[in-house]
């Protein structure tokens, strides 16, 4: 089962934008909920992006969910995410508007690099053989 994991950057932006742009944020999160339902259905992220118009491919495994589907006069907001399929973790990276888009994407790339490294390290640790009884006694 998939789980979402927000970054601290995401948390800060979420608090600010739910105050300043509540209508836009309601639509973005509504779309995020639909995206999450598709992940739970076992659909791969590439296919989700192809089939849902509110999802954009930002490359490097990063996708952005927008506010489309609600009233037409809403400002453009994008919620950036990184679905990590092996661990079924949906990393919620950041949120931004059209003006901050290039900077947001750059920030996301740096975050994803870190996430991939930490996931690989975790996998390597998990695949290491259990220490034998003799080894575990070594101080």
């Amino acid at each position, binding site marked *: *089962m998939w*789980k*979402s*994991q*927000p*970054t*601290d*950057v995401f*948390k800060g932006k*979420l*608090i600010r934008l*739910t*105050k300043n742009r*509540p209508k836009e*944020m*309601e639509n973005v*999160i*509504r779309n*995020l*909920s*639909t995206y*999450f*339902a*598709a992940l*739970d*259905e*076992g*659909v791969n992220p590439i*296919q*989700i992006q*192809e*089939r*849902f*118009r509110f999802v954009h491919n930002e490359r490097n495994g990063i996708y952005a969910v927008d506010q489309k*589907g*609600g009233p037409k006069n809403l400002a453009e907001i994008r919620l950036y995410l990184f679905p990590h399929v092996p661990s079924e*973790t949906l*990393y919620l*990276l950041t949120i931004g508007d059209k003006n901050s888009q290039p900077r947001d994407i750059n*920030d996301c790339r*740096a*975050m994803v*690099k*870190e*996430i991939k490294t930490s996931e690989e390290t975790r996998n390597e640790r998990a695949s290491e053989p259990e220490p034998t009884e003799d080894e575990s006694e070594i101080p």
Partner: protein
Amino acid sequence: MNEPVNPNRPKTNRRYRNIVDMVRDITKDEAFTDGLEKTIRERVLLDHLMAKRAAADLSQKDIADQMNCSQGRISKLENGKDSQMTIGEFQQYANILGLEVAFGTRRKDINIAQQVKLHVFAIRKLLHQIADISHGDENMSNGLKVFLSEVLFNTVHSVVDVNRRFKDLVKESPIEKPSILVFDAESEEDENVIHSHVAR
């Protein structure tokens, strides 16, 4: 020596199964979260259909073509609320996805534990149906024995999995023989079968 702090490192901690819970936890904004929860609750069926459409790798236009309407109509349908969709549209959409629509009701005040019990009873009923069908047919009976072992193993595995997740909680209050509670073994032989699976 301490590792240098990387400013790009995404600080994360808690993982959430529920998007609304996550928003509530982070923003502490009850008014916004209540509104959001209402919006999401109004779209349970639509989210389900859209997820199934993506799983079937179909576009809005594919659905529209088979429902003899425009792609714009499907877009409007998907962006609306469950209450704005007719039962006929729901059935048509589901049928295109190869889904059979099944309706059911349950008491509003039922809790999760009671839901689990209801599912267990439903599984038991289905297993009895399979047993009735296979009665008198040696091949089917042999197949049923293997199948029942799989059901038993998967059920126990699921309980053990949950048990592991909440191990700290379980340490204080260990779960007692879940297989016996679930399957309500009627004979000593049944209990032996269950215990042999639990012991694996």
